[in-house]
């Protein structure tokens, strides 16, 4: 490339378009600097710096939700900014805010370096935000790897806990495998679409637009089909869809609770963002994509729900129930591939993700607060009589779990309703039948958890040789955290009653 060509290319770089990501990246560095500069006893304010920075970005994004260049691409087609990507940016920043709050609470119970945790959360967030705007396989892969590498560290963050280390190792190996699958798929697609001998080949086959045009002209290329399936498999790892779900229970149990929440919500949402972006790119292969996703979705719903039935550890339980949620969401993605249902189905998926965020963080918040010093050891038994000792926490837990179970009048129900409606429109009757079975089964374990917290229980007498009760001590809830949990629970209720402009915007398209 000559200087002129580089200059011409650079002219398309619109740095203002990614100002939020840049700011979050700078914030991550600022935290590290703050740790060096500030005296040790002032380190408590580092997470607060992170929180206020994130809050600023969050408000900034909301105020400038529809920038002028919406719908266009920047950075020579690396990024494409849409209403959906703007939604995801807000979503990921909100996740980061909540994870940071949970991190503050969880890290108090551990003797661990603290600043790095918050810093890595920020780096992951910036990468997730870019991922939601990806319009090119190179950018997609780099952003995804940034996210995954960040998670490798976070999952094994409590390094004194063998389960956390085991989880980190599992996530590392399986994550690497999934990256390899994804990369191999990308290479295959690059190879077929970039082959100059092929009809309608492209000089820039990493670009989604170019790839879509190529695929539309070659609707039954075998290598492209293999590539598509491999790319989908790589993403299925991230969202924990069957048969790529094996890592979920162990990693969810071993990872510190805030990281579990981050994985469950943000990482899953990123996977679905990619699926929806790629669904558009692979639209000429929609028959293949629908078949693959349908099989995965059915198996995911059934496996997630039935495997969660037998769990006693709440982190494993919520991990496996999260697998089933991935299945319901895939229903929405499949519906989005059906002509005539498309944009409404995408709106339904977004609404489901929003409801899932509110409910999950309510539940994870309660879990984080109640966890003892051994973060992996959170059993259903530990929730006994919660309604007597902490009625507020029990209420938040019940609302969060009820919303996850899809019980009206909570937001989770509306999410399921929208997904079911678009799936009906797309005539996915078999998957709907499976989903109904899944919902009914899920009632058993979600309400089993509520039962543990609410209904009076017979408690086994302590064994003679034990010194004290192994159950962790329950502390009182601090006011700001209580307000936060209350807000999450209220939001779940309000969004169930009144979807307002959000509902009209997401589903009216």
């Amino acid at each position, binding site marked *: 490339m000559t200087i002129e060509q580089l200059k011409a290319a650079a002219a398309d770089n619109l740095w203002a378009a990614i100002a939020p990501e840049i700011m979050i990246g700078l914030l991550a560095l600022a935290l590290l600097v703050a740790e060096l500069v500030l005296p040790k006893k002032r380190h408590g304010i580092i997470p607060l710096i992170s929180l206020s920075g994130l809050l600023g970005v969050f408000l900034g994004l909301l105020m400038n939700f529809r920038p002028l260049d919406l719908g266009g691409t920047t950075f020579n087609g690396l990024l494409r900014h849409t209403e959906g990507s703007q939604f995801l940016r807000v979503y990921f920043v909100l996740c980061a805010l909540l994870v940071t709050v949970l991190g503050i609470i969880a890290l108090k119970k551990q003797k661990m370096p603290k600043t790095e945790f918050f810093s890595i959360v920020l780096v992951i967030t910036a990468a997730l935000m870019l991922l939601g705007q990806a319009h090119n396989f190179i950018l997609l892969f780099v952003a995804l790897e940034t996210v995954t590498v960040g998670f490798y560290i976070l999952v094994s963050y409590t390094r004194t806990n063998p389960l956390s280390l085991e989880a980190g190792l599992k996530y590392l190996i399986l994550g690497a495998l999934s990256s390899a699958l994804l990369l191999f798929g990308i290479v295959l697609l690059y190879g077929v679409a970039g082959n100059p001998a092929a009809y309608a080949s492209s000089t820039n086959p990493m670009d989604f637009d170019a790839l879509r045009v190529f695929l539309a002209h070659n609707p039954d290329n075998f290598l492209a089909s293999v590539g598509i399936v491999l790319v989908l498999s790589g993403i299925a790892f991230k969202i924990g869809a069957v048969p790529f779900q094996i890592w979920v229970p162990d990693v969810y149990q071993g990872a510190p609770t805030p990281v579990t929440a981050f994985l469950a919500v943000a990482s899953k949402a990123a996977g679905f963002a990619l699926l929806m972006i790629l669904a558009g790119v692979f639209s000429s292969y929609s028959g293949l994509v629908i078949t693959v996703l349908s099989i995965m979705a059915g198996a995911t719903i059934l496996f997630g729900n039935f495997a969660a039935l037998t769990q006693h550890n709440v982190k494993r339980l919520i991990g496996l129930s999260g697998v089933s949620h991935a299945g319901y969401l895939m229903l929405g993605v499949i519906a989005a591939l059906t002509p005539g249902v498309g944009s409404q189905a995408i709106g339904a998926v977004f609404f489901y993700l929003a409801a899932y965020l509110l409910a999950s963080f309510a539940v994870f918040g309660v879990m984080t607060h109640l966890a003892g010093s051994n973060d992996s050891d959170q059993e259903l038994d530990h929730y006994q009589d919660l309604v007597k000792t902490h009625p507020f926490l029990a209420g938040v837990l019940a609302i969060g779990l009820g919303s996850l179970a899809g019980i009206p009048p909570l937001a989770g129900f509306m999410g399921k309703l929208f997904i079911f409606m678009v799936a*009906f429109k797309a005539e996915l009757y078999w998957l709907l039948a499976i989903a109904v079975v899944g919902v009914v089964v899920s009632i058993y374990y979600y309400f089993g958890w509520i039962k543990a917290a609410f209904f009076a229980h017979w408690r086994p007498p302590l064994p003679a040789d034990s010194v004290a009760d192994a159950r962790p001590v329950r502390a009182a809830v601090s006011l700001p955290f209580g307000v936060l949990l209350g807000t999450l629970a209220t939001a779940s209720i309000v969004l169930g009653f009144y979807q307002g402009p959000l509902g009209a915007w997401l589903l009216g398209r």
Partner: protein
Amino acid sequence: MIFPFDPLLLAIVAPLAAALLLIAPLPERVVKAIAALGFLVPAVLGFLTWWHYGANLDAGTGYAFRTVYDTGLRDALGISLHLGLNGISMPMFLMSGVVGLAAGLYALQTKAERLRFYLGLLLVMQGGLMGVFASVDIFFFYFFHEFALIATFLMVGLWGGKDRSYAAMNMTIYLTLGAMLSLLGFILIYIKSGAESFDLIVLRHEIAQQGLSGVAQNYAFGLLMIGLGILVSLFPFHTWAPLGYGAAPSSVSMLHAGVLKKFGLYGLVQIAVPLLPAGSAAWAPALAWLALGNIVILGLVAMAQRDLKQMVGYGSVMHVGYGFLGVACLNALGAGGVVLFMVAHGLSVSLLFLLTTSIYHRTGTFDMDDMGGLVKKAPVLAAFFLTAILASIGLPGPGLLNFWGELTIFMATYEHFGWLVVPALLGVVISAIYGLRAMGKVFYGQPSAAFLKHQESNVVTDLRWNERIPALLLILTLVGFGVWPRTLSEPLNKTLGEVYPASAAAVQK
């Protein structure tokens, strides 16, 4: 009279607002006053809307007191909080107000643990019930039902009697399955009718214009019949009901067996049969046979009970068979009978549950073999109980309204199914046998040894005034409408005349 406010919205919001107020730390007397007010408002509004129904009736739509509130999805999905009463829902709305007030007043005098929480949940249930019958929009009809169901589940689990945890779980799983199936049925109608709206008026209009394919009607009615059937304990999906009623606290049994369960029958009469004439014609014979299963088989099971509360529970499940039989006739006569029967059944069953608990408080047991001779100690209770038993048998007199309902159903059954009416008539004999036998065992004869022993340590009093008032409220309403059913049947006739011609055509073979 033109109301200066929306009476239907107020009837829904008042109990919910009262429930919210109870969260505040108030002295017990204020708590009770607020709760009483929350129960009183819907009942008063029920009577007011009944009295002023004719004057407010809008001839174009056939609904009175119609208002539409947009919750954000009206334009996007055709879902809006559309309230209104027609001739079918007005009697139900009135009945649920009255039963709610009786159940509330009865709950006020109980010595439940954490009374504030108990009353709050009961108020939530009441708000949901008023919403069920005030909704013109099918989505909100379903939504309010689930709303009331959650409160039911928690109350059974927290304040229930024997086996409450198991009963609550059993009930929730069954009812979720029923609710999910009927939701699928409703979505099927929504999508296949092409109306893209859950508004019943729009749906009716659209289906009258466009029609609905026979296959879609078959599936939709099948889903609704089984789904709603589970909710109304249609044989053989009834097993949750006696178990649940046996375990539930009395006010909850009153509201659930009396009112909430009518959701399913009401849904069939108001929505499924008029909208799906071909589907209902195909399923009606099967429904009639299952209804006979309720009447005969469960009637015999009720006869075999020694536990009074179980007997009342089975008796209530048995009687809903009449409702299904009336629905299966698919004509205005049968449907009209079902609505009158539902009102009568709601009032008499809740009266029975109330008195059963009052008997328990005097004898300390539900086992009828351990009672006897109670009439000497509690003559008023005996008189009330006899009234309730006679009403539930359907004898003219106290049970005049039950009589009108059952008579109409029998006439419709004879007209439509011929000799099938014989086993249905057998049900009257069965309920007379178990009812009068219970009367004899509990109140007449010599006191059993166990009851004498119980009297040594407990003073047995007659029905106190705070128990008499709710019971009298139910009895007077029942007798009043029995003597003067025209005020209910005239608007009912008018609505059925508008709604049912479609099915009359389908019945002709």
